[in-house]
């Protein structure tokens, strides 16, 4: 068996992939027909790990031509339920097949008592939670045979129980487990706004040496709070944070997520390539803040983009 690029490697051995895009169902045809000039793709693990149909075939073909990273939404590393060994084995099988550069998921929990909310729910940031999650990260890394990369989620509330900041929690988790981090720059902006923290303070205490990857995305301003909707261009304030994050992370692999009202592949790619200006030290225009939409029914962590348009992909009724 071929050894995957990241297998048995520490996070310092992981490559800097440049600018990548999320591999989305709606772009499959464009990618297979044009093989666009994109540095790499990030695939949502759950969209491919159980597939016996076209998604599995597409990721095989894409992985032959581009570096691919697997990004999960269902590991539930922070849950008080036991780890789902069936899920981990399926993830491992997919990784053996597509040889991803690394595997990531979120610092969150998705459900307990055998249920799944399909949301990325916040964990209480305490020493006890840290002990619990560190033990689970060790176990996951043993099973997958590679470091786990964890993302800071977008959060909309703060628990009274919290005794650590998110950067402090992530720093301690990395020190205990040698895991890596996926810094979602938009999530930093969203979470800091919602919990009334300063993104500069977040950045100042963030363990930058552990950052393997970054995410960019758009959010919705609901007036009293921001929601991580992934359904529009990156906001100027987030580009400004990205310029700083690019320097501090020493040019970590960067990916644009666009998961709601997904535009054409070319438009997503154009949005991604805006990053180049900020990588060269450009400063974002911080004026012209988008108008808030109070009371908007925005959905955090949208996942319906993972559901394929089966109706569009069906043939007409046949008469045989």
């Amino acid at each position: 068996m071929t050894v995957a690029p990241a297998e048995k490697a520490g996070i310092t051995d992981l490559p800097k992939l440049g600018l990548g895009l999320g591999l989305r169902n709606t772009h499959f045809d464009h990618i297979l027909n044009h093989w666009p000039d994109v540095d790499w793709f990030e695939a949502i693990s759950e969209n491919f790990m159980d597939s016996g149909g076209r998604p599995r075939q597409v990721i095989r073909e894409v992985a032959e031509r581009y570096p691919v990273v697997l990004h999960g939404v269902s590991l539930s590393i922070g849950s008080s339920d036991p780890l789902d060994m069936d899920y981990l084995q399926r993830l491992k099988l997919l990784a053996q097949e597509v040889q991803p550069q690394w595997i990531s998921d979120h610092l969150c929990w998705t459900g307990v008592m055998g249920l799944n909310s399909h949301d990325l729910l916040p964990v209480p940031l305490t020493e006890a939670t840290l002990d619990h999650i560190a033990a689970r990260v060790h176990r996951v890394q043993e099973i997958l045979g590679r470091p786990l990369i964890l993302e800071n989620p977008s959060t909309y509330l703060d628990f009274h129980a919290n005794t650590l900041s998110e950067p402090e929690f992530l720093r301690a988790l990395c020190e205990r487990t040698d895991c890596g981090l996926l810094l979602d720059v938009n999530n930093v902006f969203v979470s800091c706004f919602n919990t009334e923290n300063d993104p500069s303070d977040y950045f100042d205490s963030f363990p930058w040496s552990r950052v393997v990857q970054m995410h960019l995305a758009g959010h919705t301003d609901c007036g009293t709070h921001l929601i991580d909707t992934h359904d529009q261009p990156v906001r100027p304030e987030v580009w400004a944070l990205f310029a700083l994050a690019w320097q501090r992370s020493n040019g970590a692999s960067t990916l644009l997520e666009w998961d709601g009202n997904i535009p054409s592949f070319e438009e997503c790619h154009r949005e991604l390539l805006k990053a180049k200006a900020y990588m060269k030290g450009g400063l974002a225009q911080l004026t012209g803040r988008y108008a808030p939409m109070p009371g908007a029914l925005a959905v955090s962590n949208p996942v319906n983009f993972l559901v394929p348009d089966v109706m569009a992909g069906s043939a007409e009724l046949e008469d045989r």
Partner: protein
Amino acid sequence: MSAPIELSDLQQWMQSALIEPKATSRQEIETRVRSTSRLSAVAALGIYQNSYHLRIAACMRDQFPALCYALGEGLFNDFVAEYISQAPPESYTLYDLGRRFAGFLQANRPDLDAPESEPWVDFIIDLARFERQIFSTFDCAGAEDLHLAQLTTPDPDLCVQPSLSVAAYGFPVGDYYHAVRQEKSPQPPEREPVYLAVLRKDYVTHTVPVSFAHFIFLQEMCRGGTVGSALSAVSQQLSQDLARVKLAWSEVSEIRDNWIEAGFFLDRSRA
């Protein structure tokens, strides 16, 4: 690796608050969650509560587009809200979300106490079953990497390909589904027994109406049967002489050829 009790306790509380928002008191929320100058603790938790329902309703609309059209989005969302309240998602995969939906609709049909079933309720349940059949076929194991049978493949070597399924319905749900797909604004159809084979070939999902006899035949083959056992099943269920059924199968090769060309069968000898 047992979880700290305070973590289990908080997560069970928060999950219950998502599933049953009305059962969670303001006092409980304020004990657990901080308020900010812009957002009360109740409003902050409300973001998760709203998103939970909206997110799953969006996924269900994508999995049942024709049913959503038939019911209208508002009523469809109401059914989904009740569905996930009774049967919250259990799987890590969103593809599992709609697995129990037709069963939920059947168990909660409004005409349970009526002397006769309401046709529109039967239609809604049938349509939910059909859309699940279609959705499952999209990404299940298929024949794309396997050897499909050829016209020359002998009968004993025919077996059904992995994605083929057949189902009986009391309404022409396939016609309705495809009319919605073509944006023809169809009306709910009249009762009419239909039998539909659904399969995937070259990553495209096909729906093929079949006769009752063909349904019996294909159902037996989907259960792992052979052409021989499928012909016996037809003979038994239609009370037809087996020799006559076998003769019809061998003389009317058009059906067999059509099915082979449509990708119904694998060549067992090349598996």
